[in-house]
């Protein structure tokens, strides 16, 4: 009887097709009115001797049936889960998202900002439409000064309203507006009245800085720029500081870096000089401090200006300055790159 019942249960469990069938099978064998329960009920009518023999057989049968049923139920649940997972299945395709890029000028400005911020500098900006006063006069470049030859100006309303020729105009505004001490850098676009060709543009990118403290000097300036160039170009960089005339500063300093292409031997990149001019600097001219109302006897100040375009062109191997602003700058995309 036991063997027949288990065989029949197995048969039923193999055939069922949905969860409702499983419930019916349970009721048929293990339910209150099921076959096994009815066998247990029959024990009451047996003698003690028969119950001693038959009882454990039926309990064993019940346990076995329960075991078979549990397994069947577990299998059912697993199949159901698998089916659900199968239905929810998603695949990875081979495309990758397009990557966006920052302009090389921005990347370079950021690198410089990080170095200067690590030395406690603030980053400022200022107007591109300027007045003659802030672009020239307050920087000790009076009208008809020879230094103005260096900067052919684009005028909006000659002679007073113009497009700034140097980011130093922001320096003049900062000197006037903020109480020392301060350390500031100013990345910005400047304009010169030049025809656009492969080597010249009417727009340049300057990186201006000014430091006003109770005590600072050329040694601080030289140390700052050696640190900067090392951060940008590595420990082996060789920097040269030479005297140079700029009306905004006195003493004035020319900032050179040994040509990274020829290591000082002379090549086309450095025009056979062996050095690349990176910018200008110096102690802020006393007249500029006086015009800003800064007490020369109390405060010392140095300023600097770097031209970014040549840096960027060298770094990204760009041969035509127009590329930086003229539409020929493109960003390389990976061969698998795709817009999702």
């Amino acid at each position, binding site marked *: 009887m036991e063997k027949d019942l288990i065989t029949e249960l197995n048969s039923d469990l193999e055939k069922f097709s949905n969860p409702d069938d499983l419930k019916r099978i349970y009721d048929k064998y293990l339910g209150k009115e099921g076959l096994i329960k009815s066998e247990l009920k029959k024990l009451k009518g047996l003698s003690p001797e028969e119950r001693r023999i038959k009882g454990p057989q039926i309990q064993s049968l019940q346990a076995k049936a329960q075991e078979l049923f549990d397994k069947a139920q577990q299998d059912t649940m697993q199949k159901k889960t698998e089916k659900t997972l199968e239905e929810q299945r998603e695949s990875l395709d081979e495309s990758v998202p397009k990557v966006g890029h920052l302009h090389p000028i921005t990347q370079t400005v950021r690198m410089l900002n990080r170095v200067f911020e690590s030395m406690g500098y603030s980053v400022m900006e200022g107007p591109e439409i300027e007045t003659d006063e802030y672009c020239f006069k307050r920087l000790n470049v009076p009208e008809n000064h020879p230094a103005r030859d260096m900067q052919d100006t684009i005028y909006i309303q000659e002679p007073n309203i113009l497009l700034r020729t140097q980011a130093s105009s922001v320096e003049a505004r900062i000197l006037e507006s903020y109480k020392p001490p*301060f350390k500031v850098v100013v990345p910005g676009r400047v304009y010169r009245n030049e025809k656009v060709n492969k080597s010249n543009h009417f727009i340049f990118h300057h990186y201006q800085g000014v430091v006003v403290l109770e005590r*600072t000097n050329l040694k601080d300036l030289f140390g700052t720029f050696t640190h900067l160039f090392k951060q940008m170009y590595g420990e082996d960089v060789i920097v040269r500081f030479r005297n140079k005339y700029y009306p905004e500063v006195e003493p004035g300093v020319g900032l050179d870096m040994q040509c990274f292409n020829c290591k000082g031997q002379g090549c086309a990149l450095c025009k056979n000089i062996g050095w690349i001019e990176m910018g200008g600097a110096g*102690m802020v001219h006393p007249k500029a401090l006086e015009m800003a109302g800064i007490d020369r006897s109390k405060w010392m100040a140095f300023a600097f200006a770097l031209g970014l375009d040549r840096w960027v062109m060298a770094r990204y191997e760009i041969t035509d300055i127009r590329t930086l602003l003229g539409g020929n700058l493109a960003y390389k995309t990976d061969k698998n790159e795709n817009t999702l």
Partner: protein
Amino acid sequence: MKILYSQIKELVPGLKAQDGSEDKKVHEICDAFTLIGHMVDGFEKIKYQGKDDYLISLEIRQNRADCLSVIGIAYEVAAYFRLRVELLKVETKEAEGKIDIKVNTGETIKRIRALEITGAKNAESPAWLQELLKFHDINPINLLVDLSNYVMIYTGYPSHLLDKDKIKGTLFWSINDKFEQITTLDGSKIKLGKDEIILEDDKNILALAGIVGGNVAEIDLNSNHIIAEMAIYDRAKVRKNARDLVISTEASTRLEKDLDPNGIDYAMNMLCGLIEEYCPSAKIEKEFSYYPQPRKSPEIKLRPSSPSRFAGIEITPEQSVKILRDLRFEVEKSDERYIVTPPTDRMDVELEEDVVEEILRIYGFDKIPTDQVPTLEVVKDITPAIINLDEKIRDVLSAKSYDEVLSWPLTNKSVNEKVNYANWQMITTQNSVNDEFPDLRMSIATGLVNQLDQYRKKNVEFIDIFEIGKVFGKIDGKYAERESLGVLSCKNKKDLNGFKKVIEGTLRTAGLDSVSYKKSAKVPENANPHSCWDIVADEQNIGIIYKFRSTDPKEHIYFAEINLGKALDLIKISDVKSVFELKEKIITLDANVELLRQNPKVSSRSGGSKTPPSGVEINKDESIENYLAKIKQKIDPKHLWNIRIVDKFAIDGAMRYTVRASYLELSDQQAKKLHLETFGLS
């Protein structure tokens, strides 16, 4: 400025190579030039008069007119190497007769000296002179003219020689008010204005003073009766005349800088001495001198500590004084300071800082340590918020797969008219050499559109680009500029809402989360008028978003521009606390809002329930965005997590929105009460 090594050595005889290597010595001198302020930008080994020599090209400091001469350069070298300069000895030239010259130029002339010479028989120059002039990029003309140019190279002072026999009557220095043209020595005809300093006689214009001579009194091979003149003018006037007439000559290059009027004596004596030497029958007959205010050097106070204070290293007073004396400065001690008097040809030295620079550049910038990162004092960070906003936006957009471009702010009227949407007038530059682009851009779209065209021409795919930069306009007569963000996306399928999400996501990340849209008040020509909206935040217009007009149905170009300054103001205002500690569960409730006739019709239900909305009408003139903005203002920010539209559909001509509000730190009952009150459902 070009100079031969032999010319320097002639004046600084102590300049000798210690180990016999001239080559090494010349390189040492070149390095010194660069270090002390005159960068060597060319160097060539040449032969002069059959001997080895070196041609050095120098970038002379702008304020050192004295160094546009062999003498000036020699003084620099001598000071650096602590040697003496031995000038060519010249005799003082004087004459008893007086040349008939009148000066009618006011204060524009500082000094004139002229000598009239007879018997100066002209000829061809000797070979040495012709060869020398060519090294200085000057064409040999004839003996008298070439000697004049030789003296200019040597002393830095240009002279002008006139053929006296060709002059009609009196010589005048005047401000031009009658001559319309001058024919120069090389035959060029130059149209004049009315404000040049000129040299004229009773009939003709003879020279543009300080710039170029005319051909009327030109020296030729038949000349032997001449007037030699040297003059120093107001340099600004010479500079202006030369620039206005677009002329640059050896003379104007020197005279538009500060040249010492005192130096004329040596230069004129040298010139006349040479004329006498090469024209043995020459005789100085008459002279003329005009020098109303002889120049004197300033006396400058120098604190002994100043050189060290500026350099950051110890420079002793004795070292400073030695350097100054090597530079020909007079130095006297007075109390705790020095009184320093520069030589009169050092027109660039006026202040204590100028003196300090002289000391430091000769002491050597290379002696100041460069390897010490300064330990400067800590100062307050004054970086303005717009800098950080720009940086954040660049990061967000590049993370959203957009490429940054930078473009020209100059454009032209027709381009501006296509993209401008702001209420301002165009700004035009007065003198841009780039004639096609005289105007400042009014929208940042100009550059992005140009970039788009370039990329399309060059088959660049996936054009998603942005730019942050200034745009310009005139408002109420005042010049204005704004920091602007432009974003452009070129798609091959319609995706305005995808583009909108990029813009909104960018603004939200920057801290501006209450963005809405309304039909543009001013649609740019470039925009599809059916797809153009103003971007609004806190009821203020902060930009524009539109689809480009396109004739290609497969191409969809979207553009947005944000006024970052305005956006920043709003970000500051809406700077609410965005981080909080979640102590209670978030209660989410829905409200259904109908946009139809006079009043908003609202019904309430718990999030996710299927209760049909009863509907409340919104005033027909009000947008759902404005309605929600008002709702937001009614709720204490600390109890509001967010409000959003989760569904919308049209029904009976009305638009029905399901608005979902999530509340913080409130019980179920409190949240429900607040919800009903806020939406007017209680």
